[in-house]
Every structure is written in structure tokens, then in C-alpha cells.
């Protein structure tokens, strides 16, 4: 059963997975090549941190695409095919979820291999260290979190997705109104802190995403 789900889901996801693998493999190599001759260790760290946002974005994009593509065909058929199958609904969701996780792996592995190659083939200034495994593990967690969040949203009804979008709009409108009223309320900033700060659901995306650090 899982094999059949994996096979069909692969058909819908393979292009996104392929692109993610290419980008994930390229990024560490490019980041090291671009900083082959750094002016100072500090400059190197600053430059490598700038690349960090790219890893976080890639993890989020990978999670989003794999999650959305896992459900897109079911959505198109109004879930009639899935609902008519003789399998418990929670089990069907788990099968789709499991298949999605499998499709995160190629990009994670590509990033790990590339990070290892990049750091082992370029000289690293004294006092600094390479963290290919830590970066890969962080990327894997981030991709998993993004996938889980977007998978849950995609699996839900259009109404549920509308509620989430509505909640985001309410926060933005509230911020706009309080700004217009001259109140110094940092609503958006607080909302972002709650989500991105520890133990927020997206905390893995914040912090230092760097291949080279002290």
C-alpha cells in the first residue's frame, strides 16, 4: 500500500524534488567558492551567515512544495477517490505523510554531501570550524517542520485554510490600524517572535544557519 502511494506521489513530486536536490547540492559549494579568499575570518562568517537565509528558504520551499503536491491530486478529485478506498482515513493521511517525508530525503542528503565536499575541499581559516552535519540536521528539521505545517494546512478543507489566512490578515490589519492610530504596538513583531522564537513552532528557522562558524 505504501509502495503504491509512494509511486504515485513520486510522479507528482519528482520535479520539485529534483529542483530542490540541485539547489541543495549547489548552495554549499557556491557559498564556499564565493568565499574562497575571505578578507578575514569575520568577513567569512558574515558572508556564510548571509547564505544561511538561503538554506532556511530552501527548507521552507521544499516542505511547502512536497506538502502541497502530496494533496493536489486528491483535492482536484474532491477527495472522492481517497474517501472511497477501504482504508482508515487516518492511515491514508499517514501514508501520504510518510511518502512526503521520503521525498524530503534526497535534498537533505544532497545538502549533506555537498556541505561535506565543500568544507573538506576548501581551506578554513584558523579558529573557525566547519559544521556540515549540524547544518544538514538543521536543514532536515526545518524541512520536516515546514512539510508538517503545510501538509496539515493542505490536508484541511478550503475553509480551514481560509481561517488560517484570515488570522494572518487580522494580524496585519490590526498592525496597520494601530500604526495609523499612532500606537506603538508591535503586533506583527510579537506574532513573529511567538512563532519563530523558542519554543515556537517555527523556531528551527531562526538562529544561525552557517556552514562555517567559530
Amino acid at each position, binding site marked *: 500500500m505504501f*509502495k503504491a502511494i509512494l509511486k504515485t506521489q513520486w510522479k507528482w513530486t519528482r520535479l520539485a524534488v529534483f529542483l530542490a536536490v540541485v539547489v541543495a547540492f549547489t548552495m554549499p559549494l557556491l557559498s564556499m567558492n564565493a568565499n574562497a579568499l575571505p578578507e578575514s575570518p569575520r568577513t567569512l562568517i558574515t558572508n556564510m551567515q548571509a547564505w544561511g537565509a538561503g538554506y532556511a528558504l530552501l527548507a521552507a520551499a521544499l516542505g511547502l512544495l512536497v506538502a502541497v503536491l502530496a494533496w493536489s491530486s486528491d483535492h482536484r478529485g474532491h477527495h472522492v*477517490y481517497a474517501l472511497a478506498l*477501504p482504508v482508515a482515513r487516518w492511515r491514508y493521511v499517514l501514508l501520504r505523510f510518510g511518502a512526503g517525508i521520503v521525498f524530503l530525503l534526497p535534498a537533505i542528503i544532497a545538502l549533506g554531501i555537498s556541505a561535506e565536499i565543500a568544507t573538506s575541499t576548501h581551506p578554513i581559516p584558523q579558529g573557525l570550524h566547519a559544521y556540515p552535519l549540524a547544518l544538514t540536521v538543521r536543514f532536515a528539521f526545518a524541512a520536516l517542520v515546514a512539510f508538517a505545517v503545510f501538509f496539515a494546512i493542505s490536508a484541511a478543507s478550503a475553509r480551514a485554510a481560509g481561517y488560517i489566512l484570515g488570522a494572518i490578515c487580522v494580524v496585519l490589519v490590526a498592525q496597520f490600524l494601530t500604526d495609523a492610530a499612532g500606537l506603538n504596538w508591535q503586533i506583527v513583531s510579537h506574532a513573529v517572535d511567538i512563532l519563530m522564537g523558542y519554543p515556537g513552532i517555527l523556531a528551527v528557522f531562526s538562529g544561525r544557519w552557517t556552514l562555517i562558524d567559530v
Partner: protein
Amino acid sequence: MTFAVETQQLRYQAGKNFALTDVNLRVPVGSIYGFLGPNGAGKTTTIRLLLGLLRAEGGTITVLGESMPAAYVTVLGRVGYVPDRPHVHPSLTVGESMELHAAFYMRWDARWAGELQRQFRLVDDRRVGSLSKGETGKLMMLLALAQQPELLVLDEPTDGLDPVVRRDVLEAVLGYVSDRQASVLISSHLVHELERICDWIGVMDRGDLMAELPMRDFKNGIKRLYVTGAPELVGETPFTILSRAPMNGSAEQWLVRGWEPEMRGHVESIGAVVTDVIDLDLEDGFVELLRSFRDKR
């Protein structure tokens, strides 16, 4: 009599304008049950409730002896379902669709699926999204049949198909039923199609199951009578008067159910005379039944 499908007081509200009200549907085991009704009558909604795709607001549903939707995993493994709209993933090929389907059904018959594929001339590597309407209908029928169901639930399976494809599809269903003694619930608004294949009929309109009876009773029992001299109040009759329409003078046209020739005597006993009896075909019977039912509401 045992029933493949049985509902009691089934209720469901869909929006403000449509509701199923106390539907008591009974599909005898081994029968081909035609579920007849105009578009929007509630046939698809009823079918979705039977299969646990929707949740009823009241009443009970029993399918193949199991309570629905509680036992949906077991029941769906024994039911072949062809929905009113294509539900197969359009990006998969015919072969991939069959492979995916086979993975979920314990009783999938790969050999027979292959035979049906050849019979329906479905090419393995054609994308489902690129199939014609007829080919998609055949594929859905293939998937439903090859899992060897005890109950086939077909929701407008031939709607929009050309006569040749329609015949192929119905022949496959009839062949299956005669081989395996399965039960079939087939919904349609194509009256003549059901007339050919069904042995039971249920008529639904605006969320109400108006009638449920053996096909022969439905076909033979509904007549149009031309009557003269009938009093305004007829009283108890051994047949059911569905409607009375005045004609010229004292002549009237009655639509009746359960008519037998020996009942002329009863009509004469109330001072009226039956001048003519017209047999209605299924379509006429259906239309008249629908009209009389709507007039009563």
C-alpha cells in the same frame, strides 16, 4: 428478504434548499436496483451517505450487514463504486491507476482486470487525463469490477456516454452480476436504461423516496384510465389513484397504481365506467408518478 443496503429514517441537510427526509431505502441482496430521479433529486447525496463519504444527520444505514459509517473500512472493501464524476487521478496512466487501486483491495483480480482492459481497449500507458469521457467511464467501471465487489454502487455510470460505450459498460455489469450474484445499486435519470436491466426500482424526488417496488409492478401497475360518470368522492378503492384530471363533459383521466382488469367492477359499483385503459411505459409512469407526487405536496 435480506438487504444489501438498508436505510431507516435517513436524514441529511445540504444547505438551506435541500434535505433528505426520512429515506427508507432497501436494496434486496442479488437485485439490480435502479435508483431513479430527476437531476438534483438527492440520488448522489444518498449514495455518498451510504458509502460514508458524507455524514448523516439522523437515521441508520446498513450496507452488506454492516453499520455505516462505523464499519466503512470493511464495507468499502466489499463495494465497487463508480461516482458520478471521474475520481481517478488524471496524471496517472491507466496502468498506474490499476496498480494503485489493486494495492488497496484484497480481492483484486489482476487477470480479470487485464481481460477487461483488453475488452475496453484501454491502453496501459495512456494518461487518465487524456482519456475520452467514454474511456474514463470504462476505466472506472474496470476498477470497480476487478476488485470483485459484493455490491456495485454506480452513480450515473453511463451519463454522457455514447450508445456503444454505454452498452459495453452495462454488459460488463450484467456479466459480472450473473457470474457472481452481486447486488447493484445504479442511479440514473435515463429511464429506458434502467428499464432494461433493473429488477427493482426506487424513485426519488426532492430528497424523498417516493416509491420503491419491483420493476414488474412498476411497469405493469401504473395505468392511465379514461373514466366517465365518476362521483366527486370515490372512497376506498382496491387500487391507488395517483391523480385525477377532468376532460370533456363527465370524462376524466385517472392515473392509478396497482390496477388489475377485474377492478373494472369496483369502478362500476360507484357509478362510473372505464372506457379505456392505457399501459404506460416506464418513462411515462415515472413522469406521471413524479407529477402526482409534486401535486400532492
